């Protein structure tokens, strides 16, 4: 149980109790870094143009993995592969392997809807539905046919997203009446309500003020105890603050300077990326020599 902090409400985190916890010692598999995603030579193209190329790295359970890099390097394109959101764009094509818990995410038998039930997403601009706060959160559980008391599910999700106290008295009011930061936490709560395995966040704070940003960063650190998080961010300091692992992307122009293609330069512990990066391009970016 997290200790109550002065500003954030109490967050209840329930970790599944393994059967062999007899002496209170954690089993081996919990201590080791367990990858849930393995990307192998992933290339994403829109039509004929490759947006991001040859991406290879792992994403591990209960970690926050940050994707950083300059504009146009394909970070958003890549993160959208992880929950098959690129399927919504007719010209998008994914090559290479995206393996999730040992299964090829783009395999022929895989249903994209099932994928998105387990891998949720929070978008750059908060996108609440034009409905009440309650109905926003309840939408996911309803369409997925989740069992359980809807009121409890809604409350639990809003608590987990650190927004319950602010809205508990106005659950039936329209979500559009909330401030930007509240709306984004609502979107996070909405995502949590369907009990995902992974939460993808595409620049979740870039449209928000610094105080809301801070609240969401605190929330992310709490959430990683129960979920795994991948975040795209423009804000290097944010990546340095919250993430465990960081992937640095760069953008390359092709010969006739028409197409920009992104690729991963370095993937490592966040601390190493920011204090002692291996690649000079990484160093140039994180020290602010290039934008």
């Amino acid at each position, binding site marked *: 149980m997290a200790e109550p902090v002065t500003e954030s409400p109490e967050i209840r985190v329930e970790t599944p109790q393994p059967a062999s916890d007899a002496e209170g010692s954690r089993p081996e598999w919990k201590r080791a870094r367990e990858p849930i995603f393995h990307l192998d030579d992933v290339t994403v193209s829109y039509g004929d143009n490759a947006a991001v190329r040859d991406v290879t790295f792992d994403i591990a359970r209960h970690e926050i993995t940050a994707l950083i890099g300059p504009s146009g390097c394909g970070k958003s394109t890549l993160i959208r592969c992880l929950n098959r959101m690129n399927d919504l764009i007719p010209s998008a094509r994914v090559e290479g392997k995206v393996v999730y818990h040992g299964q090829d995410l783009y395999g022929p038998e895989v249903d994209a809807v*099932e994928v998105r039930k387990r891998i949720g997403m929070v978008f750059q601009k908060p996108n609440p539905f034009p409905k009440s706060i309650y109905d926003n959160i309840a939408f*996911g559980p309803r369409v997925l046919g989740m069992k359980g008391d809807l009121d409890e599910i809604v409350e639990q999700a809003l608590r987990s997203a650190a927004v319950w106290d602010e809205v508990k008295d106005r659950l039936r009011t329209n979500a559009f009446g909330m401030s930007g930061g509240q709306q984004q936490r609502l979107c996070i709560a909405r995502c949590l309500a369907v009990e995902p395995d992974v939460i993808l966040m595409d620049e979740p704070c870039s449209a928000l003020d610094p105080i809301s940003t801070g609240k969401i960063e605190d929330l992310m650190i709490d959430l990683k105890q129960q979920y795994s998080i991948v975040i795209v961010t423009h804000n290097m300091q944010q990546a340095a603050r919250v993430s465990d692992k960081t992937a640095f992307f760069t953008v390359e122009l092709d010969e006739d300077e028409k197409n920009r293609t992104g690729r991963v330069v370095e993937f490592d512990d966040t601390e190493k990326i920011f204090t002692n990066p291996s690649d000079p391009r990484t160093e140039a970016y994180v020290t602010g020599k290039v934008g």
Partner: protein
Amino acid sequence: MSARQEAIGRPSGSQRAKDQSFRVALLACLAVAIGLLVVLLIDVVLDGAGTLSWHFINSFTSISADKAGIQAALWGTIWLMGVCALFIVPVGVATAIYLEEYGDSTKWWNRLIELNIQNLAAVPSIVYGILGLAFLVRGPLSLGTVVLAGGLTLGLLVLPMVIIAGREALRAVPSSIREGSMALGATQWQTIWRQVLPAAIPGIATGVILALSRAIGETAPLIVVGAATVIAFNPSGVDSQFTAMPIQIFDWISRASNDINNYRPLAAAAILLLMILLLAMNSVAIWLRNRYEQKW
């Protein structure tokens, strides 16, 4: 004024006069256009207001003009609008959903459907009457000149309006809503049915009402379909023979050529009633749009 003076930017007196007279000319044209409308409305009111009464609304048509009323035509129109609405709402909305949400516009068949709808929107209304005559009244369905045939004919006529309005209403819903819903694990139809369509309903409803406003005043298709003029009963079902307000108006106008004093007021009163109905429908449409329009 010389080109050089123009370039320096000092308008001469004659230049200013030209500007002013252009402006005046534009306003005069607008005045003529709107003026005709005003004269038309005044003329109709003057001709018909005296005859428009409860007696008029509740009586059936009659050989003696002073007893004649519009009840059968009014109810005929109401029945026709009912059939029309029941047809255009599901078909129009479904087509709009298909084209906006499912149809990939790079495929030629989807582009053909779109082009086809744009063309149908401009086909003369009398041609729809011919279509109705050939397929609904006679031909394969042979429904006869009944309410169902008339209503469906009008429905086919205004269907493109509903489809076009429906597509605009769906398009106005931002894609971020669809993405948010799909990202939660909802299917495409769940997203459309529970998020996109509800948000588009005000726009769709406005489109349907405007389509019905068009249908209610259409005479030519009903003439060709064969709506009778001397009907002294209200429709009892979709398989009834019928008359409609535009048809009755047309009949009275035709009679007015021979007997202008008796029949002209009847025609004018019926026109007035029709315009009042139209005004009511359009007011509802405008109210709907203002009250429920979603500001994203």
